C-alpha cells in the first residue's frame, strides 16, 4: 500500500513540470500585449512612451527563457509572484476566491451524490421500467443543458415568480458573505449555482452509477448471494453498490476537480467571485503570471483529487491494494 502511494506521489513531479512548460509556452503564443490592452484597450488617448514603461515594469521586455526560469524558480519556492494586471500578490488574490469556489464545489458535489447514487441504483434495479426511462430522461437532459443556461433560467425564474407572488422581483445576492458570517445570506446566494452545476454533475454520475450497477448485478457473486437467499436490499447495498462505486468515484473526483476553477461561465452568470471568473479575466487581460498560477493550481487540485481517488480505489478493491 505504501509503495503504491509513493509511486503515485513521485509521478506528481514530471506532471507538474510538464504542465508548467505547456502553460508557459501556450500563453506566449496567444497574441496580445497586456500593456497595449491596458493603455489602448479603452479607446482613449494614451502616451506611446507609457506602453514601453509599462512593459519594463511588467518584465515582458525580458527574454522568454529568463521569464520561464523565473517562473519555475518561483514555483519551487511556492512563490507565484504578483498579478501583472492588479499588481497584488497572486496568493492573496487566489486565496480570496478559493474559499467561494471550494464551497460551491462541495455543495454541488453533495447535490450530485444525493441525487445520483439513489437514482442510478433505482434505475439499474428497475431496468426498462417507467422509472428507469424517467431517470434516464432526467439525466440525459442534465448532460444536454449547459449549467450557465440553467443558471440564467433560474435567475429569470426567481425574478418572474417573486414579482408575480410578492409584487417585487427578487434575485440572489450578487456579493459574497462567508457562511460563518451570515449563513442565510450565503446559502441564498450559493444554493442556486450549486443546483445549476450539481444538476449536470449528478446527471453524469447517475448514468455512471446505473451502468456500473447493471454490470455488477450480472456478476456471479451477486447470483450466488441471491441463490443463498440473501435479502435483496442487502445484496444491492453491501455487495453490488460498493463494487459499482469504483467508476462513480472516478467521475465524482474528476468533476469535483473541474468545479475548482472550471466554472468559468456559471460564476459570471451568478456574479460569483470565484477562481473560474478570475481565470477568464486573467486570460482576457493577458495576465501571464496570474494565468500560469491558476493553471498550476488547477493541475495540483486534479493531481490531489486523482491521488485521493486512487487511494479510495485501493480501499474499496483489495485486488489493487495487493497487486
Amino acid at each position, binding site marked *: 500500500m505504501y509503495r503504491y502511494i509513493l509511486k503515485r506521489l513521485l509521478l506528481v513531479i514530471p506532471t507538474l513540470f510538464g504542465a508548467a512548460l505547456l502553460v508557459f509556452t501556450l500563453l506566449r503564443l496567444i*497574441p496580445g500585449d497586456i500593456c497595449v*490592452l491596458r493603455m489602448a484597450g*479603452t479607446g482613449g488617448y494614451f502616451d506611446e512612451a507609457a506602453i514601453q514603461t509599462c512593459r519594463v515594469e511588467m518584465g515582458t521586455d525580458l527574454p522568454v527563457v529568463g521569464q520561464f526560469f523565473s517562473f519555475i524558480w518561483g514555483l519551487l519556492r511556492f512563490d507565484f509572484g504578483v498579478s501583472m494586471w492588479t499588481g497584488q500578490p497572486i496568493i492573496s*488574490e487566489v486565496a480570496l*476566491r478559493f474559499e467561494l469556489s471550494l464551497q460551491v464545489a462541495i455543495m454541488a458535489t453533495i447535490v450530485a451524490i444525493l441525487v445520483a447514487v439513489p437514482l442510478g441504483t433505482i434505475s439499474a434495479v428497475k431496468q426498462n421500467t417507467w422509472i428507469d426511462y424517467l431517470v434516464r430522461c432526467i439525466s440525459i437532459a442534465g448532460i444536454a443543458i449547459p449549467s450557465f443556461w440553467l443558471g440564467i433560467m433560474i*435567475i429569470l425564474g426567481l425574478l418572474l415568480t417573486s414579482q408575480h407572488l410578492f409584487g417585487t*422581483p427578487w434575485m440572489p445576492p450578487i456579493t459574497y458573505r462567508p457562511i460563518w458570517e451570515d449563513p442565510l445570506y450565503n446559502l441564498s446566494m450559493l444554493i442556486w449555482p450549486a443546483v445549476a452545476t450539481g444538476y449536470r454533475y449528478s446527471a453524469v454520475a447517475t448514468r455512471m452509477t446505473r451502468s456500473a450497477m447493471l454490470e455488477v448485478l450480472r456478476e456471479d457473486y451477486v447470483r450466488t448471494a441471491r441463490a443463498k437467499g440473501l435479502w435483496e436490499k442487502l445484496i444491492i447495498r453491501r455487495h453490488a453498490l460498493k463494487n459499482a462505486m469504483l467508476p462513480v468515484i472516478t467521475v465524482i473526483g474528476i468533476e469535483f476537480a473541474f468545479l475548482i476553477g472550471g466554472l468559468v461561465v456559471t460564476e459570471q*452568470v451568478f456574479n460569483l*467571485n470565484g477562481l473560474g471568473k478570475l481565470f477568464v479575466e486573467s486570460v482576457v487581460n493577458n495576465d501571464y503570471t496570474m494565468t500560469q498560477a491558476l493553471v498550476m493550481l488547477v493541475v495540483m487540485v486534479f493531481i490531489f483529487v486523482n491521488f485521493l481517488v486512487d487511494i479510495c480505489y485501493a480501499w474499496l478493491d483489495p485486488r489493487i491494494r495487493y497487486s
Partner: protein
Amino acid sequence: MKSIRLKTACAVLAGIAIGMSAALPAGAVTPKHGGILKFVVPAEPPSFDAHRETTFALIHPLRPFYSLLIRVNPDNPSSTTDFVCDVCEGPVPKPTDGGKTYTFKIRKDVKFHNGDHLFAQDVVATYQKIISPPAGVVSARKAYYVMVDSVTAPDHFTVVFKLKYPSGAFIPALAVPFNFLYQKSQLDQDMHWYEKNINGSGAFRFKDREAGAVIRGVRNPDYFVKGRPYLDGFDAIFAKKESLRVQAIRGDRAAIEFRGFPPKSRDDLVKALGKDITVETSDWNCVLLTTINHKRKPFDDVRVRRALTLAIDRWGGSQYLSKIAIVKTVGGIVFPGHALAANKKELQEIAGYWPDLKKSRAEARKLLKEAGVDLSKTYYFNNRAVDQPYKIVGTWLIDQWKQVGLKFEQHVFPTGPFYDVLRQKKEYDVSADFNCQSIVNPLVDVSKFLSDDRSGSQYGQWQDREVDALFDKMNQSADPKEQRKLMREMEKLTLDTHANGFITLWWNRIIPHRSYVKGWKISPSHYLNQSLDNVWLDK
C-alpha cells in the same frame, strides 16, 4: 405692540419661505440624507492610480474618493464647456498674459482623508506627476499638456500654470476626471504609492475592497462642501456579464450602472419595472471608426477609400441601428454636441454623408471601376469580439459595402488579439476602431487622425502633413471662429479629400436606473460626473 411684532415676524418668515420656494426649480425636492448607493461596474480597475490608467472601471468606484482642481459642472454635465471649480475658489479663472497664464486660488478648507490639509503644493505635485512623470512612472495622458510650460505654487493657496502658447485645449484638459489630486508628501516618499492605496479629499472615504467583487466607500464627514455628500456610502459591485447587471437592477441588488445599456435592456427594464425605472439618454463621446490599412492594396488608392465611405448609408443606419445598438448620431470627427462640430448642412457636403444615397453609391461604384478593384476578391475586416456596438455595426458595414460590390469577411477577436492585428501585425484591409474620450476636448480628441508618427493611436499607417499642419495651427489658435474653420478643413481632408479613415456613427448612452436614485445627471461620457456628492436616494 407684541402682536404687531409677531405679525411682522410671521410676514417676514412667510416672505422668505415664498422667496426660497420661488428660487427652487419647479418640481425640485429637498435631497434626503442617508442610504447606501449600490451600483454595478462591468470591470475592475487594474490599479488605483488614475494618472496611469485609462479605464472607466477606475473612475466609477474611485472617483468619489478624490477631488479635482476643476470639474464638469455636476448640475449641467451635458454641457461640453461648463466647467466649475472643485478645490479651487470662485469661477474657473480666465487667462492673463495674452492667454498664457492661469492662476487658481485653492480653498482653505480641503482636507485629505488622513486629516492633512490640501495645499497648492499638492496640486502642483499632482500635475507634475501627470505632465512630466519621473522615469519608471506611467502617465497615460501627459501629451494632453504639451502646451504647459510650468506649474508652480507661489504660496500655500495659489497655483499658477504658465503655457507656452494660448490654447483652447488647456481648460478641458485640466477637467479630465483622471486628474485625482494626490498628496505631495506621499508622492515624495513613493511615486507608486497611489497604485495600491487611496488617500483623497473627495466626498467619500475608502472603506474596504474585496478583490474582484466590490469596493465600498463611506461618507466623508470633513468634505469641504458643507452638507454633502447626501449618501452614507456606496458599494461599487463588479459584474462582468451584462445580463447579470440588468437583472441586478431589476432585482434591486443594484440601483444603477453608469456605463450604459443597449436599447433592448432598457426596454426590458422599463417593461418589468414601469415607473420604478427612470431612463436617461445622451450622445456619447465615443465613436466607432473604420481604420483603413493604407499599406495594403487596393486601399492605398484614395479612390477606393472614398468608395468605402460613399457606400455607407449613415442617415438610414442611424435610424435602424439605434433600435438595436448603442449607436445613433451621425457626426464628423468632432463630438456632435460641441461648438466645433459640423452641422448637418456641413456634414452633407462630405463624401459618405450626402443626402442622396443612390448618387453616393453610384459614385462609389464608379470609383471602384476606375481604380480597377478586383471585386471577386474577399477582403479582410478586423473586428473586436464585443457585441455592442462592434459586431453589430461590423455586420452592417459588410452589408453596406456589399451594395457596391465589395466583399469583406469579418474576423472577430477578443480585445488582446484584436489589437495585436490592428497595431502589431497590421494584417487587415479594414478594421473597426474606436475613439472614446472622457472630457469633450475636440482639439485633443482629433489627434487620432494625425500622421502615425505623430499619433500613437492611429493604426492606418498613413502620413498626412496637411492634416498635421491644420491640427497644429488649430491648437495654437485662441480664436474659436478660426478653430472651427480649421477643424472643418481638417475634417474635409480626413474624411473626404484624402479619405484617410472614416466615422461610422457616434454612440448613444442609455442609463436606465432605479427611480429612487436622484441628483445624478447623465453626461456625454461614462467617465464624467462620477463624484456622487450630489446623489441621494428617495427611499
